[in-house]
């Protein structure tokens, strides 16, 4: 619909970006905030009407990443080809600089369970995810980036550590990895993993994006704390520290601030992005230093 020549093209820069949500459509269009790129949830721009008109307009100034939440790459039943087609239609119109989905599942028996559900970390699940990533990349003729999830459960029959699972998906399919540092922290805390070890096990060359967000802490019936990835607050200090570690391992990577519930004024997102940018600048500086030496 929109003329392709007017879109901001090229890759997502290795800078800080923000997740664009409906409450900020108008102010982003009017104020043109100084942020390098934006990401939206693909499912929010299916069909037609007002949301797409905003995105058409914003897309002219900023590179956009399409981040899906409903493809269900881990479904034993197979991919919903109609959903893949809906994604393709959004991509055709928006011409995203990047596309991503989650290492998760949400559809079984024709029912959409409206959440990013945990996979058993088994060879069967690995084969299933790889098959679906290949199918997706083939259908959309674009490289996909797969995000590590935050999880609250572990299955007794899991045999592969999550970091090895996601590295294997990247190795087998050629997809990239979207490393959600908050999710690494949340899952590591919930399951007693070593977050630094998780990051170190990921193939640095495959990391194309980092996500950062806030999470909450809840005390469960057994008296233990559970970290809930609810995207409704600022990034906590421990996650910023882990992010700095991630940048040492991966080098400067496009970094997104996500906020989905109790969405604050745009200013707050920009502050968080500015902080991420400070850490990115340090990492870039250090990298140049190393390159020069």
């Amino acid at each position: 619909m929109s003329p392709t020549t007017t879109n901001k093209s090229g890759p997502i820069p290795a800078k800080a970006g923000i997740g664009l949500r409906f409450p900020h459509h108008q102010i982003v269009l009017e104020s043109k905030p100084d942020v390098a790129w934006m990401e939206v949830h693909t499912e929010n721009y299916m069909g037609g009407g007002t949301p797409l008109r905003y995105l058409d307009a914003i897309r002219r100034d900023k590179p956009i990443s399409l981040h899906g939440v409903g493809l269900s790459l881990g479904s034993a039943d197979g991919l919903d080809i109609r959903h893949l087609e809906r994604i393709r239609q959004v991509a055709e119109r928006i011409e995203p600089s990047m596309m991503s989905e989650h290492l998760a599942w949400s559809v079984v028996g024709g029912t959409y369970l409206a959440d990013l559900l945990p996979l058993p970390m088994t060879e069967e699940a690995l084969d299933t995810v790889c098959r679906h990533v290949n199918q997706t990349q083939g259908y959309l003729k674009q490289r996909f980036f797969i995000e590590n999830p935050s999880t609250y459960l572990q299955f007794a029959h899991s045999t592969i550590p999550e970091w090895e699972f996601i590295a294997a998906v990247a190795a087998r399919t050629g997809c990239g990895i979207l490393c959600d540092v908050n999710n690494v922290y949340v899952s590591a805390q919930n399951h007693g993993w070593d977050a630094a070890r998780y990051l170190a096990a990921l193939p640095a060359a495959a990391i194309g994006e980092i996500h950062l967000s806030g999470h909450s802490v809840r005390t469960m019936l057994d008296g233990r704390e559970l970290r809930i990835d609810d995207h409704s607050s600022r990034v906590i200090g421990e996650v910023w520290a882990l992010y700095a570690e991630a940048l040492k391992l991966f080098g400067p990577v496009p970094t997104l601030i996500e906020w989905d519930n109790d969405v604050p004024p745009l200013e707050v997102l920009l502050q968080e992005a500015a902080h991420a940018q400070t850490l990115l600048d340090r990492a870039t500086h250090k990298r140049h230093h190393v390159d020069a030496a």
Partner: protein
Amino acid sequence: MSTLLETQRAMQASLVAADDRATFALLSADVNPDRINIYRNTFLMTIIKALRLTYPVVLRLVGEEFFEATAQLFATRYPPTIAYLDQYGGGFAEFLRTFEPATGLRYLPDVARLEWAINRALHAPDEEPLDLHELAAIPAEDHGRICFVAHPSVQLLRLDYPADSIWRAIVDEGGDAALASINLDAGPVQLLIERREAGATLSRLEQEQWRFAERLLSGASINEALGQADGIDVSETIAEHLASGRFISFALTAHEPISHSNHLRY
């Protein structure tokens, strides 16, 4: 060892039917089973939120507590079938019609039907309206053979209760006085709902206008639709539909025209 499908069916039973037996059997020994509640809550909250967005006027009419409970029941009985929640909840009106606690509000299902039509209009695909120059190329004697393709945002609805007045009273913040002034027994209303720049618009049509529009919008030729056109100015009516962008294309039916009158004014 449980297969992937068995694991996913177990979690489906947990989330949709609150039956955790199969999931519990699959969890690592050190995982407290109440963690499954995190997923169940997200599933329900996400779907209830989708229903709140689609049915804000129903929500206002029944109140928060009643709506949440009703939406949760609907969500577990009729969970979404696709990962595109803007298309979820079309059966809510029918659910309300037979939902005993809601039957006291006899107009509620009609309000829900209206809100579903508005939702469909708002999320319909974008299509360019018909270019009138294309129509100008059709000779007058062939006008009766024209079959229009409707813009996907255009919805026609016939309701027993004046749900449009109720909708407007709520949306315009008219308060109880505005609601109280509505005569619920004034008879059926015929509505045309469509998406415009500023959002969804609702128009009331006379019965004949509505029937004619229903024929035309469902792809009948102008000649075929004329059977439903008693007492209306067909040229003027079609001109208004065209000017409002309610058609995106047209085709000509093969059969011979039965009327040579010029029905098009544009």
